[in-house]
């Protein structure tokens, strides 16, 4: 070898090393297989001055990627036929030159490199590659094969993620459908139940024998339990759908808790259990909170404690943990000496539709929703339902929460008179337009209003109500309208809007109060109804006293309305 030749070859070696370095840098910069191959093969062609570069999978005559796209002529195909029909039997062959062919009388050269566990890299060139370069390309092929495997793994991950997302979407849809179903069913069950409860109220006021009164008591108890369960289901589905919100109104903790404890006194006594309430004397008198939901939580806790405790004690405690200026930290706990629970049972508590032990359903009944709702409500109050229990020793359930202390104001209740004595209806109220589509509720309303001494006209939907309003006899006009919300043909809101329009068109006509009746009130509904021109909202089942009070409150206000001539 002459010195000039030696220098020339050394230079070629240097260039080869740099080019291989450039290739290795350019390969494997994407996890998308198409992009990876597009970029890598382009660089291979450019750096190696190639004509065609393609990657094939095992046993597949069609390339995974080929550039240029018209680069696979018959001559190349023919020399690939053996390799491409080999399948995966060569999967463990190292990354190296596997086959080479000279085409077109030596004017083209075709090289086939194995890409372990991925397939084949095919390269064609005008000029042949020397052995040293061919050997040096092995690590490049290894890197390309590794990159292809990474792409495949990434693709697998992407598909898994996509499948998971689809499953999650399906689950959410199923959950949403279940919630909607529960809400619908609750509503459908509550409607006839409201009828039963309403008539029970009326029935109780008739002359009954002792036996009949006893039976009636049982029916009332069963109906109340059923209504409780339905309300639980509705609450749960509302909360799951994010539609439940807590009020922040002043409440008297002592009164709130005492009332709940009293509810269970008789049941506890019948089971030989002592139920008592201990209230921290340092407690602020009034705090801000949602009295209804607080009662619901405590009622559930006491109900459970009493249910699972026979001949024992149930202590309900309300403690002040901390107080700073206008805020305080409180704790409510219900401790019983009942049957207790294992940790496994405790873990299941709070899962909707699950009871601590399926055998408890058989023995003690219950939907399993009560504590799930409690847990949700406590969480909404910023606390956490804590359970401490030992089988055979009893259970303590409770929670802590922080709230603001309500400013002391003049008691508002007194303005409404004695809670047990409904205010008499104003003497001017004689005629009520009842808008109600449900026949049982129609009948109930008729009975209730008759009992209140009121004349009534019935409309079975909003359209009938508007017609009745338009054609009313001005010698005996409607003094108040009881408007159901959800009705066929025309709903209560639309009917109210039209009635208000009619009143505007007839300037001499007085505004007639409209009271919304709904079986499924959500937070914000009252404000929405008032904004639509209604005057008040009452929930079903209709409470006689509430109806009486509301009419008394609304109608005189209307009488003083300056727009009324």
């Amino acid at each position, binding site marked *: 070898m002459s010195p000039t030749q030696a220098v020339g070859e050394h230079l070629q070696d240097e260039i080869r090393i740099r080019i291989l370095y*450039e290739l290795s*840098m350019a390969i494997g910069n994407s996890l998308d297989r198409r992009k990876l191959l597009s970029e890598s093969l382009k660089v291979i*062609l450019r750096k*190696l001055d190639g004509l065609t570069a393609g990657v094939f999978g095992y046993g597949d005559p069609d390339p995974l990627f080929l550039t240029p796209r*018209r680069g696979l002529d018959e001559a190349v195909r023919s020399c690939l036929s053996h390799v491409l029909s080999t399948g995966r039997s060569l999967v463990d062959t190292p990354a190296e030159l596997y086959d080479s062919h000279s085409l077109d009388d030596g004017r083209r050269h075709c090289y086939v490199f194995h890409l372990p566990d991925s397939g084949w890299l095919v390269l064609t060139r005008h000029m042949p590659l020397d052995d040293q370069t061919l050997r040096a390309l092995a690590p490049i092929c290894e890197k390309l094969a590794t990159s292809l495997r990474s792409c495949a793994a990434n693709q697998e991950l992407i598909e898994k993620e996509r499948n998971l997302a689809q499953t999650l979407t399906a689950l959410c849809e199923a959950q949403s459908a279940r919630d909607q179903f529960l809400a619908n069913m609750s509503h459908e069950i509550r409607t006839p139940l409201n009828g039963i409860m309403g008539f029970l109220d009326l029935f109780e006021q008739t002359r009954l024998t002792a036996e009949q009164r006893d039976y009636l008591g049982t029916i009332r108890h069963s109906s109340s339990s059923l209504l409780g369960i339905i309300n639980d289901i509705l609450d749960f589905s509302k909360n799951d759908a994010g539609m439940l919100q807590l009020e922040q109104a002043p409440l008297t903790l002592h009164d709130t808790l005492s009332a709940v404890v009293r509810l269970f006194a008789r049941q506890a006594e019948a089971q030989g259990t002592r139920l008592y309430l201990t209230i921290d004397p340092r407690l602020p008198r009034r705090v801000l909170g949602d009295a209804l939901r607080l009662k619901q939580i405590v009622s559930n806790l006491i109900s459970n404690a009493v249910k699972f405790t026979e001949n024992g004690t149930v202590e309900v405690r309300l403690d002040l943990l901390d107080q700073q200026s206008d805020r305080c930290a409180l704790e409510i706990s219900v401790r019983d000496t009942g049957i207790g629970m294992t940790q496994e049972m405790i873990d299941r508590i709070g899962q909707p539709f699950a009871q601590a032990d399926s055998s408890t359903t058989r023995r003690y009944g219950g939907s399993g929703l009560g504590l799930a709702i409690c847990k949700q409500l406590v969480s909404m109050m910023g606390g956490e339902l804590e359970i401490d229990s030992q089988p055979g020793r009893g259970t303590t359930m409770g929670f802590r929460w922080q709230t603001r202390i309500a400013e002391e104001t003049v008691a508002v209740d007194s303005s409404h008179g004695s809670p047990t004595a409904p205010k008499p209806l104003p003497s001017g109220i004689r005629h009520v337009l009842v808008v109600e589509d449900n026949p049982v509720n129609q009948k109930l309303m008729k009975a209730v209003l008759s009992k209140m001494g009121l004349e009534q006209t019935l409309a079975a939907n909003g359209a009938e109500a508007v017609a009745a309003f338009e054609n009313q006899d001005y010698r005996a006009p409607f003094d108040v309208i009881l408007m159901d919300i959800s009705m066929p043909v025309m709903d209560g809101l639309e009917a109210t809007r039209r009635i208000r329009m009619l009143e505007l068109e007839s300037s001499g006509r007085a505004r007639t109060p409209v009271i919304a009746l709904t079986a499924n009130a959500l937070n914000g509904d009252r404000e929405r109804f008032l904004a639509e021109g209604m005057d008040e909202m009452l929930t079903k089942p209709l409470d006689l006293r509430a109806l009486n009070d509301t009419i008394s409150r609304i109608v005189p206000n209307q009488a003083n309305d300056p727009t009324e001539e």
Partner: protein
Amino acid sequence: MSIFQFTSSPSLPALVDAIEKASSAPGVRSLMILAADGNDYDGEALDAVLSRVELPLIGGIFPQIVADSNAHEQGAVVVGLPQALDTRVINGLSDGDADFEERIDEACADLEGSATMILLVDGLARRIAALVDAVYAVFGATTNFLGGGAGSLSFQQKPCLLTNAGRVMDAAIIGMLDGASALAVGHGWQTIDPDHRITLVSGNVIREIDDRNAFAVYREIVDQHSAMAIDADNFFEIAQAFPFGINKLGGEMVVRDPIAVTEDGALVCVGELSEGDFVNILTADANQLVWAAGETAARAVQLTKNTQPEVALLFDCISRALFMKTHFHAEVDAIEAVVGADVPVCGALVLGEIANSGTGYLEFYNKTTVVSLL
């Protein structure tokens, strides 16, 4: 009547005359029009002239044209080609989101592949490299590609590509020529400082070389070889003599021409580079370039296999001509000497040359000579 027409006049009637003469030459089936930017033709009038041409045509307005053994800043060359020509325009060459393979597929669905493609681009468009890659991906390995970037040395983008429908800009014209060609690519630049790694680059802007500021590294090398120290003010003038070279296995280096330095010391090149590329700093004198041009023409002649070409079409880099100044005619002389007196040599000085070196992948070159014999 000769198929080769040259006018040194910048007037449009002179161009019309050349077109008519070339068109009427026997056996002419299509036209190539290469006009100099210095003609400053009236655009609408030129459109009207082009729309009246009945033969299929392809052409452009270039910084300079080559004819009559030299480069010209004014005038036009019209070549009547004996081959059939089918052209397609690919628009939106600066469109950052364009998938050019898709656009070529759409525009060329009914275009048969052929042995030779003339590819002219708006040399001031932003995505020439992407188009070049896409053209190779679609039309591939069995075609000879030749062409370059049209446009003005004012670096103001304007309609510079010529079609039967008039002028277009920010586009590429693909012209399939139904006939064989012999093609060779060469430049003659030699390495004076090898092995510098591009460590930070965005497209055609080199930010770092060897993990250092690109201009700082470049200046250190150039100042060792240049009579005058390079700075931002004289950058274009000095850097003309010191382009970058990117290695290719078994092929000539691809030359990249640095044309400007930014305030933060990045080097702006004509054409893209990749991170990880090793570059050499090159230089040459006029004699070396002239010799290389002759050698390139000789390689093209070898490929003709003793068939007599009608014309030698030259796409040479404008920056190469600017560097060679008055010596440029020697380059044309060298080519003429190789191809023979019977074969007229004509062409354009372009903003980047496009060719596939006659042996492999399609490249966008700088400071390089592409000789094709048609």
